[in-house]
């Protein structure tokens, strides 16, 4: 049995951010994740946007945390070395009527102190993004918005947390709980147990189930599905800034996103569904997404698609975040309904939850030996010829290019595995191997072999993303 001061359920971006924030204090913290790796739920499949602080009114908690979270990214990037770029956000109005809404967004942004926010004429819009549809009549520019690789962000947060003493338990699916002292005794499906004085419920789509298991508030998380398509980095349609249409009542609309790593993402849809495991994409939404994207950038083409995916937003009916000390269980902090702008808000969620824990009676003493930095991973494709040469002289595995499309070396794959990413998807998200245009056609077998060599797993134990997703079924 593991004993800790705080147990955090869920290692998505909220849980990871909370864990990392708490790792700066004299506390024993356990981070529990039901999947084989962190960030494998909602946090891996979203738009990867650091929002610009103009989409929602300040009366919402989510807006206040979004504004605060946005400002925290630059420092986090310096400490944690994840792909992040403040490329700016454009909202494009396609009709004169839509300018009224742009006006509203602008006022809201000013109210929220969104940095540098600007109303744009048609000319200004084209100056900022020459690839726009000629029908665009004007819009909004929020230079403080940006893009981030969400899984890399979570990986870095967790790595930093672990470095500062947080214990991560993966494959830990909370199934039962009983009171224990002032806190809880939590049991996983496989029988592992964790005793904690305080518990943070950051279980994303399953926050309602976890709340029920912990005997706390009843609420319902509705999965809201978003489908996306990823375009090759050589597409002619790549914009330089994130492009939003004018939002509708239920979502911010379908976007064209230049990812930090150079590919282009189009989507998402927004459909409320029932099944929390339904990650299927559909033919109908394919056309919908591309029709919408082409209204902003006409050169967006289905021919450039390299893959598709779907993510589920964990939505509460009220539409706001629910982050509070449980009224029923005073040693439980609820962190639920973290849909958009959850990724942007996450650093601020970490601080907010830390303060709630303090309010709930948790003693917070700063650790003298806290180290906010994680060790940077050299990536051969980012290096100059000279630096690449130096690195290869030190470790020839940097010259073994395993993933040709994204130019990922064997040394980087090995580093991912040593840092705990032992599934094909885990290696992929950490390194980008298999994320390019051939989608693992050339490199999958090599990564499987490296996984077997480095971990001692048998080939049957190698999975795409954990239990049940075996890649190979037999040997000749």
């Amino acid at each position, binding site marked *: 049995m593991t004993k800790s001061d705080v147990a955090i359920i869920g290692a998505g971006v909220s849980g990871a951010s909370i864990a990392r924030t708490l790792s700066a204090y004299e506390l024993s913290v356990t981070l529990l994740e039901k999947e084989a790796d962190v960030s494998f739920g909602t946090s891996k499949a979203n738009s990867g946007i650091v929002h610009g602080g103009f989409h929602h009114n300040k009366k919402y908690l989510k807006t206040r945390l979004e504004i605060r979270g946005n400002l925290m990214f630059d420092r986090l990037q310096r400490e944690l070395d994840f792909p992040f770029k403040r490329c700016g956000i454009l909202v494009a109005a396609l009709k004169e009527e839509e300018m009224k809404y742009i006006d509203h967004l602008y006022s809201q942004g000013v109210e929220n102190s969104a940095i540098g926010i600007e109303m744009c004429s048609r000319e200004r819009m084209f100056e900022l993004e020459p690839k726009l549809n000629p029908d665009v009549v004007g819009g909004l520019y929020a230079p403080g918005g940006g893009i981030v690789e969400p899984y890399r962000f979570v990986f870095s947060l967790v790595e930093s947390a672990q470095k500062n003493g947080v214990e991560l338990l993966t494959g830990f699916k909370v199934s039962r709980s009983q009171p224990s002292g002032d806190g809880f005794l939590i049991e996983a499906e496989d029988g592992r147990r964790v005793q904690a004085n305080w518990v943070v419920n950051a279980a994303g789509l399953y926050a309602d189930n976890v709340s029920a298991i912990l005997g706390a508030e009843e609420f319902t998380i509705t999965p809201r599905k978003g489908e996306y*398509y*990823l375009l090759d980095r*050589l597409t002619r349609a790549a914009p330089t800034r994130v492009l939003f249409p004018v939002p509708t009542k239920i979502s911010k609309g379908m976007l064209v996103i230049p990812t930090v790593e150079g590919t282009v993402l189009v989507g998402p849809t927004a459909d409320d569904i029932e099944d929390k*495991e339904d*990650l*299927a*994409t*559909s*033919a109908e939404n*394919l056309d919908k997404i591309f029709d919408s994207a082409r209204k902003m950038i006409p050169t967006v083409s*289905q021919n450039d*698609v*390299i*893959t*598709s*995916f779907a993510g589920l937003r964990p939505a509460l009916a009220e539409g706001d975040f629910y982050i509070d000390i449980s009224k029923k269980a005073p040693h439980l902090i609820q962190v639920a309904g973290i849909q958009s702008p959850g990724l942007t808000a996450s650093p601020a969620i970490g601080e907010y939850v830390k303060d709630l824990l303090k309010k709930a009676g948790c003693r917070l003493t700063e650790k003298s030996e806290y180290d906010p930095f994680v060790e940077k991973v050299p990536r*051969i494709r980012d290096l100059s*010829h*000279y630096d*690449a*040469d*130096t690195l*290869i*002289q030190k470790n*020839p*595995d*940097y*010259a*073994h*290019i395993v993933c*040709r*499309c994204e*130019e990922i*070396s064997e040394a980087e794959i090995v580093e991912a595995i040593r840092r705990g990413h032992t599934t094909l998807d885990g290696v992929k998200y950490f390194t980008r191997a298999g994320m390019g*245009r*051939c*989608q*693992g*056609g*050339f490199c*999958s*077998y090599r990564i*499987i*072999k490296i996984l077997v060599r480095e971990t001692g797993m048998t*080939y049957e134990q190698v*999975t*795409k*993303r*954990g*239990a*049940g*997703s*075996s*890649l*190979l*079924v*037999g*040997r*000749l």
Partner: protein
Amino acid sequence: MKELEYDVVVIGGGAAGMAAALECRKNGLQTVIVEREEHLGGILLQCIHNGFGLQEFRQELTGPEFAEEFIRQIRDSDISVLLGTTVIDLVSDATGKEVFCYSPEYGLVKFNARAVVLAMGCRERNRGNIRIPGTRPAGVYTAGLAQRLVNIEGYIPGKDVVVVGSGDIGLIMARRMTWVGSKVHAVIEIQPYPSGLTRNIVQCLNDFEIPLYLSHVVSRIEGKERVEKVEVTPLVNGIPDADKAFEIPCDTLLLSVGLIPENELSKKAGIELSPQTGGALVDSTMMTSVPGIFSCGNVLHVHDLVDYVAEEARRTGSYVASYLKGKQPQRQVRIKAGANVKYVNPGMFNPDKPDKLYLRTLIVKNNARLEVKLDNRVVKSVKKNHVQPSEMISVKFSARDVADMQPTSDSVMEVSVQ
């Protein structure tokens, strides 16, 4: 960093690269092959079935045997070979070519060369490229990856298999998976005709009673962690008929839905590509739009037989030699794909040195006629018993064919199939 000087750098050590390099060397050029894998041979090494070499060696060989013939010749020559070495950049300017590579042995290697041959081959189209809806479980493989896993690594990727696309690799893999003890439930082809060679339909499907569904598509993949089933929908006049859709339970989906020449490096070098082939646009000497850079094999256009690749690459090698000797064609006529022709390669014709043309049709037809016109005058007409898009057609010109050609500087040669 290591800097090396060669007359020619050949990028890629598969059939095309080896054949081109041997020809360059034969013509006295200092030649190096840069290959990213640990062995020469390319994809041939995983093609352990036979059917290779009927034209090149007048005997039926397996892929590795075909490769071995070339590898032996390379070993017997003084062609340099760098294995496990990936080219990362190709720069061309007035003074020459610079090829940058990562080598585990030397670190960064920079080749200074007078000419470059692109022979990087092709990659497989994948699920994302054909946008099959559904979930994203384990068990979806391109046929070539499955072939690699089975034939070289010795792993079985699945027990109950559905193959999408009747391309040759898909057909070969349907048979291969049957031989390793897995059950192949169906091959699904979107076109009303098979896309692989007829001999493969017979030897890989019919002989094993594997059903081939023409004019059908896989319309959905189901399964949470591993593939559980696929939904198959028939097409009626090209439109999916959802009422007639049915499901096939399976744990594996193999995709054989086409090949794409791998020209990302060519794009870096500013080489102009053809939207029809995905390969470089080349003149009658197989030279790309960047002088001194040549292209051949599957990186130029996807061939169905390696024998054609070897022939084309050899021709390319000799053109490299002519180019470096300063011999350029005096006259070149632009070639245009006419009626029912998808593309013709190369894109120019030299009436003073008539050579082979390769083309693909857009139609399936028996008793077809291939016509070559120069400025609307028929200069060659060939009867073809059967044409289909999946079978590449070659046309050879003789000295007599071109004897009375009188092209002007803006003449056009048009190739059509009726």
